[in-house]
């Protein structure tokens, strides 16, 4: 695709429910990153994929958070038993190759509100 897309753009859920957030990276990009941005804050790294593997999951805040990537393309971030502190914007980015020397292109994000 022309750019990184994410869905849904907004999600309101009740505390305790599970949510799934989707990311479609730029076609051909092998690396995919998930970040979380709380109101007025910076970008907090969650997890990174190279192909379908996740070499770095160090940013996932708890075992309620998980992510997968299939076919080297689409990725899904799942939050189980959501809590109010999970409310944030979840951003996905992709880059042509892995590594901190590669430009990351961001999607528009999913705004999650947990009531």
């Amino acid at each position, binding site marked *: 695709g022309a750019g*990184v897309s994410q869905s849904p753009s907004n999600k309101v859920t009740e505390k305790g429910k599970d949510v799934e957030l989707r990311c479609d990276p730029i076609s051909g990009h092998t*690396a995919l*990153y998930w*970040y979380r941005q709380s109101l007025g*804050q*910076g*970008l*907090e*790294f969650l997890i*990174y994929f*190279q192909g379908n593997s996740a*070499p*770095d999951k160090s*940013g996932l805040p708890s075992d309620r958070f998980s992510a997968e990537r299939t076919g080297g393309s689409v990725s899904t971030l799942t939050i189980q038993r959501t809590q109010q502190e999970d409310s944030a914007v979840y*951003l996905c980015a992709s880059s042509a190759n*892995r*590594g*901190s*020397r590669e*430009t*990351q*292109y*961001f*999607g*528009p*994000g999913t705004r999650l509100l947990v009531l």
Partner: protein
Amino acid sequence: QQPVQSPQAVILREGEDAVINCSSSKALYSVHWYRQKHGEAPVFLMILLKGGEQKGHEKISASFNEKKQQSSLYLTASQLSYSGTYFCGTGQGGAQKLVFGQGTRLTINP
């Protein structure tokens, strides 16, 4: 280790210059600069690589002092469209990910 950005916020008049700094306590392999407008995705501006390579944006420049582990973003003759929050993302050591600063909020007034 999260890099430190300064200033946290700056207000300018159109046409004035701005400098945003990004400082790390760890050795840096790369520094990426992004601008984010309210409610939108971060937009790539520039990447500076260890060894001096730079890929940039017209009218916006940056420097990277590898020894001091610092980078500065220079916005000259600022335009209203430059308003937003600027983030630096740093590549540290052999890590494949970026660690972002807390952001610098830039407001340009007419």
